[in-house]
């Protein structure tokens, strides 16, 4: 399965004095199994863009193909699309409503019209995937959990629909470092186990650099850059100009390069930087002795 987006434009409040062109003529393709990171300043249109991918928003113009299905066509069955494309909204914990965690996670699968056994199996699987012990949490009220746990429940609610495309809109926003780490590991393990396409919207450049195969950079509703993390984060000046940064290790690498100490290798995270420094320093020690 692949995604193809062609000349997508979305305008909020069209025709009014305060209309906003939130997505402006965006085109891209995503191949099967790819992990895409989307970065961009607040208000650059990231959320608007991804809400089109499962048909929640209708574009002003342009078309979207999920596999062979054109979801922007008139007579498309929306539930079919939502089964294939799972979307976890920003702050998804605010959508919880059921009495128990397991009932809440079952909401999506139930809407797909699955059998009781199938639903139960999926709830268990989804809870395991997000790292919530079934025996401990299934019967508890989602409202008495911690912020990080609530968010896991919400994510499990989407995973339980077994989408082929999983889209997460800033899944780690507002979480403490531990929960942040947990959610990221969870995304990694889901991808590892389930395959399919993952699209991650994030403000954390380090996370995107580490996990994404390709990075989309949004600016003012336009898709400003597309490339591998190495390509995108090499142009620090451009990212700064549009209100973004680069991962700390990449910044250090870029600064070193600016002083003529180019390593020739791609450094995006601390581990790569450590390797580089270790190699360089041990090389220096050997040449001294």
């Amino acid at each position, binding site marked *: 399965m692949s995604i193809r987006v062609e000349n997508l434009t979305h305008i909020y409040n069209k*025709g009014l*004095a305060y209309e906003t062109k939130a997505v402006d003529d965006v085109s891209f393709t995503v191949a099967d199994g790819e992990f895409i990171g989307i970065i961009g300043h607040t208000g650059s249109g990231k959320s608007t863009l991804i809400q089109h991918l499962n048909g929640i928003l209708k574009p002003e113009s342009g078309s979207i193909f999920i596999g062979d299905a054109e979801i922007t066509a008139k007579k498309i069955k929306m539930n079919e699309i939502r089964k294939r494309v799972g979307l976890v909204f920003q702050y998804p914990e*605010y*959508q*919880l*409503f059921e009495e128990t965690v397991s009932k809440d996670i079952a*909401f999506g699968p139930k809407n*797909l019209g699955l059998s009781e056994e199938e639903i139960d199996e999926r709830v268990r699987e989804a809870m395991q995937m997000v790292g919530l012990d079934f025996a401990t949490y299934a019967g508890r009220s989602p*409202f008495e959990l911690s912020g990080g746990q609530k968010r896991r429940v919400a994510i499990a609610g*989407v995973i339980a629909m077994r989408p082929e495309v999983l889209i997460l809109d800033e899944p780690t926003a507002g979480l403490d470092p531990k929960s942040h780490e947990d959610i990221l590991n969870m995304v990694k393990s889901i991808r590892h186990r389930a395959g399919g396409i993952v699209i991650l919207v994030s403000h954390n450049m380090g996370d995107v650099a580490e996990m994404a195969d390709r990075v989309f950079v949004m600016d003012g509703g336009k898709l400003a850059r597309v490339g591998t993390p190495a390509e995108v984060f090499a142009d620090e000046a451009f990212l700064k100009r549009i209100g973004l940064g680069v991962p700390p290790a990449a910044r250090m690498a870029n600064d070193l390069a600016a002083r003529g100490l180019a390593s020739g290798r791609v450094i995006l995270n601390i581990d790569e930087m450590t390797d580089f420094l270790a190699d360089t320093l041990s090389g220096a020690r050997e040449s001294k002795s």
Partner: protein
Amino acid sequence: MIRDITLGQYYPEHSRIHRLDPRLKIIVTLVYIVSLFLVKDFIGYGIVLVTVGIITAISKVPLKFMLRGLKPIVLIIVFTFTLNMLMTQGTILWEWGFLKITKEGLYNAVFMALRLVFLIIGSSLLTLTTKPIKLTDGIESLLKPFKRFGMPTHELAMMMTIALRFIPTLLEETDKIMKAQQARGADFETGSILRRAKALVPLLVPLFVGAFRIAQELAMAMESRCYRGGEGRTKLNALKFRGRDALAIVFTAIYMAAIMAERIFI
């Protein structure tokens, strides 16, 4: 979608109507509402239509935007229309079983529906052209005389300010939650009434939880800025009566005179 509801919403512009004293606008709106009940035939509504049309044009609020405000009350209008049409005795135009439409009924139905529409349009003109904060300042100022009788005018005005302020926030919240549940396959648009009512649970529960959360956060924010009610509190932008307000009074008087004259002489 849900954002289409413009009732009680403000439309940011810089028109003469927007700049009028809110106290005056509230009184004029009340006068206008009274005038609607004085109208007795369609010529009277003609006067109302022209007046409302002129005010809308001056206010620079797009007509499309204003009419969208009618959407949520279409059901009520249709309901009163049907009831009036079927329940009035008189010359029968059409009959089917126990249902009959009379000439008087049809006239009544159109008349009442128009009254409702003008009522909504007139009062939404007030909210569309007046910032909520100004509106409540105006109400507080108008209620001042009752303060002597122990009416907590400032508190009432503050409650209203907050309620108005949070209408768009709650609508936004509703929109977000609706989208999130739709992404999980929820269906708010099809099915029987019972099914649809049940489908609202996943929307209403998070909405209430959210409303309480917002209220608590707001209370804390106010507390931490030492809010302690209206006693001795001064205003950053005190209300002032200006020349254009006097002009508005003249126009209102002319309008009322026209409505009265039409009622008495035609």
